[in-house]
């Protein structure tokens, strides 16, 4: 929450009755969407989806795919890039305020630290829900006529939201602990790349027991695998539900850790600088 974004006098009566975390969320949302980089990030996100949709619909080399596969490709990119946006936003939320000199103001407000973190977590998640809303017309365009649109969107909401909560929690924790915003963003991006690394394993290695275990334990690969199994292979939602265990567990664990541990550890200097 930037110092320039303090509540106006007109909004004070309603804010007095609101819960602290809701106030923090409102301020964070205002910072992100009206004054911050929310819209430029979503603009870049929509450009990427436009290019993929255009190529999938017109390019002969890509057009061999079944419509379900085209929808799956688009949804996987949307989930992966949406998760990246959430991580970047969360990684900037505490260390960014620390560098801009607005964290002190925030820390002296009579709001419990856990609620501060909850507000920041919800604000970081908002970028995923806007990204999902932007994805809807593209999914509709690629999936129309084969009855896959509703299923793809519900899958996107379920899998994407679990991954978004996990990465928002991870980004917040890194942001609380990092000594600078640069460190926070670098560590977060490195962790995200490390999480995506198993997708580059050769097919043979992915099919071995160790490879499959790695894919299952990793929430990003588990979630993306689940999407593909339902959208492309036509499996039922329960058939591959075990692949959702890792995204669900990490979402709960990192979401709670960001609020509880992050709230306790939040300080004017990051823990990594101590």
């Amino acid at each position: 929450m930037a110092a320039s974004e303090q509540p106006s006098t007109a909004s004070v009566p309603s804010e007095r009755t609101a819960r602290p975390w809701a106030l923090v969320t409102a301020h964070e949302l205002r910072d992100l969407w009206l004054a911050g980089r929310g819209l430029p990030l979503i603009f870049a996100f929509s450009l990427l989806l436009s290019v993929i949709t255009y190529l999938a619909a017109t390019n002969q080399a890509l057009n061999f795919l079944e419509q379900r596969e085209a929808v799956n490709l688009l949804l996987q990119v949307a989930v992966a890039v949406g998760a990246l946006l959430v991580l970047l936003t969360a990684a900037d939320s505490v260390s960014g305020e620390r560098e801009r000199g607005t964290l002190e103001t925030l820390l002296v407000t009579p709001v419990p630290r856990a609620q501060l973190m909850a507000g920041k977590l919800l604000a970081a998640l908002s970028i995923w829900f806007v990204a999902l809303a932007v994805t809807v017309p593209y999914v509709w365009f690629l999936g129309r006529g084969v009855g896959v649109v509703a299923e793809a969107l519900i899958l996107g909401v379920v899998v994407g939201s679990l991954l978004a909560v996990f990465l928002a929690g991870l980004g917040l924790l890194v942001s609380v602990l990092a000594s600078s915003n640069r460190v926070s963003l670098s560590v977060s991006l490195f962790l995200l790349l490390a999480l995506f690394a198993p997708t580059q394993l050769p097919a043979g290695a992915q099919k071995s027991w160790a490879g499959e275990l790695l894919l299952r334990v990793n929430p990003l690969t588990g979630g993306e695998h689940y999407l593909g199994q339902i959208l492309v292979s036509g499996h039922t939602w329960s058939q591959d539900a075990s692949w959702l265990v890792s995204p669900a567990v990490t979402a709960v664990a990192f979401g709670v850790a960001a609020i509880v541990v992050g709230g306790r550890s939040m300080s004017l200097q990051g823990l990594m600088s101590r």
Partner: protein
Amino acid sequence: MSRARIARAPRQGLPAAAAPARRDRVIAFLCLALLATAALLSPSSARAAEQIAVSVDKTDVSVGLGEHFSFTSTITNQGSGPATDLVAHLNVVSLAKGPYVDPEDWSSRRTQYLPPIPAGESLTLDWEVQAVNPGSIGVYVAVLPRDGSGRPITGPTIHADIAQRQTLNSDGVLPLALGIPALIGLLALGLRYERRRGRTAEAPESGTDRG
């Protein structure tokens, strides 16, 4: 040396015509024994593979690009003993020179390890294939011994005629691909303009207050 001499001494006493005939019989016997030993020592799976016949339920397929098709191959043991330790493998090849075909893309399950097939009996195998390249494509199943000996026995070629097709109707993609980023970009620019206008409106007011 002296031993050799002693061993040769009795042969000198044989009639001149009987010696070559006996030698021929010995050579013939040795050859037969050698062949029998080779036959006995050669791997049973290699012999089994040679007694195998492979057939398929169709030899012509016409599908569109991206579509799936399936076929069944029948492995028949024509020998007198059971056929064991065999493996069946699916292969895909472009019959026309030019396009590169990667069989991995066509089927995720191209190898099947076969259970023992009793003499005179058959085993059917199902194969699922997705047409990934357009053109004239040959698909065949080869059965070979698992120990790597002998030669593979192949079934008839399935000639797959894969038609090029556009799976997506691209009409209207351009307005969508340009429209959504344009809308978001306009919204971002509008907000930025409003913020700047707000700041410039606040600046003279704060200046008046200070004055």
